[in-house]
């Protein structure tokens, strides 16, 4: 028997070592969806002969800045000293993924808003906004002012789409890298976490988009894409686990958290079964039988995407190098 006593605080509770909670898990989830939406939107505008999208598809890009704002609100809530948040933009720390993230987020906003604006205008054609009433003149003034900008954006549409694609990918990868560079948490410490989070984010985004009244063609496209993404995600998860299993003792004990430890049941049911296997089968069956992908599988994918982040955030903090942390 090995007995540990740590005077730091209570061994397993360690309140002062509380690091990240649900806010971060939620932020990572929303960030992943935002990344996916941006990638998909970017791809749509990069396509050679863009067919007219459904109204829902045209409006969906707005979710990028919206969900990101929501996510950043949670991120901000998690800060212990929130009114020092401006410090993020006083420096650029090359070695800090969080610093990268902060600057990426800064770039994501204009890019995603611009593309959403263009997408909306494109879909609706005519003037937007109130045509009469007290605000109409202001609106008119604004649209006129923005017309120039819009023209410029349209002229550089491919660049804008590319920037969305790249920023979206960066955002998706960064959420994984943020955890992946923590050498102190063996469960996270894998270069695969970046791609994994990107792919999972895209899969979640596809599922998220499927919740809206898209056209049949769009649904089939997203369903097919999601199917591929799920397969890739499963492959990445498998590689991530193989990587942990073949690394040192700390990584192995970290892996044991999800293969026989306290996070096992939740990981395999929510992430693997509910989030991956079942939707995979469901979507495959749907597409195979020529049906339009429905929403059930999409909801499951979203549940799985959130569960992946939630479990990774908490299990990762429970993993550690020193034996007392791995015990948790």
């Amino acid at each position, binding site marked *: *028997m090995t*007995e540990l006593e740590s*005077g730091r605080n209570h061994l397993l509770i360690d309140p002062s070592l509380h690091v990240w909670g649900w806010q971060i898990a939620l932020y990572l989830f929303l960030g992943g969806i935002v990344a996916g939406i941006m990638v998909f939107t970017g791809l749509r505008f990069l396509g050679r002969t863009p067919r007219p999208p459904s109204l829902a598809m045209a409006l969906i890009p707005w979710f990028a800045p919206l969900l990101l704002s929501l996510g950043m609100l949670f991120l901000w809530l998690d800060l212990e000293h929130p009114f020092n948040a401006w410090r993020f933009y*006083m*420096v*650029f720390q090359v070695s800090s993924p969080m610093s990268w993230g902060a600057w990426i987020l800064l770039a994501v906003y204009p890019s995603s808003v611009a593309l959403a604006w263009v997408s909306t205008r494109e879909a609706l054609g005519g003037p937007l906004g109130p045509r009469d009433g007290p605000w109409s003149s202001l609106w008119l003034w604004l649209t006129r002012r923005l017309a120039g900008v819009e023209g410029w954006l349209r002229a550089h549409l491919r660049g804008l789409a590319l920037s969305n694609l790249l920023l979206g990918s960066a955002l998706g990868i960064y959420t994984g890298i943020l955890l992946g560079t923590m050498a102190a948490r063996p469960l996270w410490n894998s270069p695969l976490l970046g791609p994994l989070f990107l792919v999972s984010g895209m899969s979640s985004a596809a599922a998220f988009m499927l919740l809206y009244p898209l056209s049949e063609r769009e649904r089939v496209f997203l369903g097919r894409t999601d199917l591929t993404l799920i397969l890739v995600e499963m492959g990445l998860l498998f590689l991530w686990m193989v990587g942990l299993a073949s690394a040192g003792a700390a990584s192995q004990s970290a892996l044991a958290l999800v293969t026989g430890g306290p996070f096992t049941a939740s990981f395999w049911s929510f992430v693997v079964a509910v989030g991956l296997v079942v939707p995979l089968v469901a979507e495959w069956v749907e597409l195979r039988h020529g049906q339009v992908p429905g929403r059930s599988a999409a909801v499951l994918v979203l549940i799985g995407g959130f569960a992946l982040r939630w479990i990774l955030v908490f299990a990762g903090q429970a993993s550690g190098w020193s034996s007392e942390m791995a015990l948790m």
Partner: protein
Amino acid sequence: MKRRTFIRLGSAGAIGAATVSGLTTNWFGFYESRGKDPQTEGERVVPSFCELCFWKCGILVHVREGRVTKIKGNPKDPLSNGHLCPRGAGGAGILYDPDRLKKPLIRRSKRGGDAFEDVSWDAALDVVAENFERIKARWGAGALALFSHGYGGNWMKHLFRAYGSPNIAAPSYAQCRGPRDVGFDLTFGWGVGSPENTDIAHTRCLVLVGSHLGENMHNTQVQEFAQAIRRGATIIVVDPRFSVAAGKSHEWLPIRPGTDLALLLAWMHVLVEEGWYDKDYVEKYAFGFEQLQAHLRPYTPEWAYPRTGLDPEQIRRTARMMGGARPAVLVHPGRRVTWYGNDTQRSRAIAILNALLGSWGRKGGFFIPSALEIPPYEYPGYVDREVAPADRSEPSQYPLADEVLAQGLCQATIPTSLGDSRIKGWMVYGSNLPLTLPNPREVFRAVQELEFLVTVDILPSEIVGWSDVVLPESTYLERCDELLAPPWRVPYVAVRQEVVPPMYESRPGWWIARELGKRIGLPDFFPWADSMEYAKTRLEKAGLDCHTLQREGVILGAPQPIYFEEGAPAVFYTPSGKIELYSQRLAAHGFDPIPTWHDEEVEDPPPGYYRLLFGRSPVHSFGRTTNNRLLGQVMEENAVWVNRRVAEQWGLADGDRVYLQNQDGVRSSFSAPVKVTERIHPDAVYLVHGFGRKARGLSFAFGKGIDDAELITRYKTDPIMGGTGMNVNYVTFLRPSQVEPASGETGTVDTAAQSSGETGMMGEKTTPGGGAAATGTAGGEVTA
């Protein structure tokens, strides 16, 4: 101001602010990072000595803006050598304890009902003086008893001597170190005193019998313990618990509790039979070796094996280690040695073992200490003691006790079938009797019989809640005290001085004693203006400068020889003038003249019960510090140590909460978590003493952990000197579901209170009673 100017100024300001903020960023290369200075370095640093335990280390107290910020060791002090134990470092936690007694209190309902009224010092002292005089007039001075623990108690002792009562007791004698001092005195003619004259620093083999140095943080001893380890000394630890010291040892003997004497005899057998003892030393200084040799013959290690459960080979091996290291070998006498009622004999066995190894007066054994002579203050002379102390029912009882027995005074307070009680009033100074004396029921019974009870204390401890008058004393950081000049390696004197003025309406002990003395017609005994003037007078007589002492904290005297080989006199104050391996005094009183094993003295725990052992934590001095928030952060409650296999039997997991119930059906008032561990003998469970406090005034410590003292309803009295062996109680586990009504822990307190009667009244406590600092003695070393 013109509008234009305003705008111009405004924009200039904005640009300036922008520039400045830009300059602070990394972009400008001026983004300098800084740490923060915690601002705890003192504007004033006052030397004094510590009172968190009774070792009395020299300290330096930092004061900033009138607050004590931190306490450091005084490098000039020969006890602290500039280092402190955690308790000493956390002394400010007592000073700034929000639960402190703030005003004198007078009880306003039945005793234990615990309704008090704030009064002025004059009113409180008048009541005390009136009662002192009344008791003296009606019953004689001897009917008033003083229980004292802590250095400030010297003033009260002085008051009592002037008053004429011989009944001055410290629980630290019969509940703690008494048997050891008597045992060594019988053998060498010297007690080991405090601080002990153990030369741990230079020893080549240190043997600890139940002594848990490292958890028992008597500073200098632990410093020397580390030095001994660093020098590569062999460490042998006998303890049913794998203590920290055992963790440092080369040989750990996990002895069955209660059988230490058998091991000591077997060790001596090996030393004598195999010729490892110091023949020259024994021949020169010892008396009765032939008798000892004959006596030891049957005590082979194989004989000891079924009793102690220790491998005979390990007993032989360790004995040879000791023999090989002699004379620089030290079998430590321990500190709290009141375990099984045969403690004086066991201490004598330790003394004899040391004598065989030739360690007394030798480097690495026991040094011969010397003290600085500081003449006493001149007083008119104490009243002759006409009366004998009331602690024994007849003079022939405990014939070799050389101090007053605290539990004896407690018993003398209870009327017996033979007649009225002999003690009518108590003054309790810094001594929390319910946690200190064995069998708290007896204490509460005695308290109910009292005509008058006054406590002088710092915190509202349990005994305070039962008092008639409570006098709030200043902490050691707020008061001056008697000079300290203990016998030690070098003679020295240390001073305690007022670091910050007394908080609230607390007053120093010297002031309380003097004011009481004046009121009971003894002003001649308190001629000094204050304790500093008192100290100065004494120092001047000794030719020492008070200012130097106040500035430095200590003054060292000339070093004296401390080993026989250096020229220290080999004097033994025994009847034979030699080291008495065979004790004539014991023989004269009908006791075993050489320690003898009696199988019937050790009993096994009943099935399902475990022997309750208790000891210290390095961060606490028993109940004295459990309310100290600074120290409590590191250890807030105690845990019940249970052997892993026993825990498996009971289905107890680490951290499960349990209540303990002893063999007499007494249940602990609160629960504590189980510590499932390999570190304890399957026969025993272990608790750190001083937790499970029931005084509600102790808002931090209340209800945390289990109080071992309330489970000590039985004790075995040492027939030689009256020490109370307390490690003879057995406990079993109760789960909270077996104890608590649905409403939870609060309900429990009440139930527990009903079951034990006395505590019920403590439960009603509404005002802070008084309190205390000390629990003194019941802590101590675990042992076998």
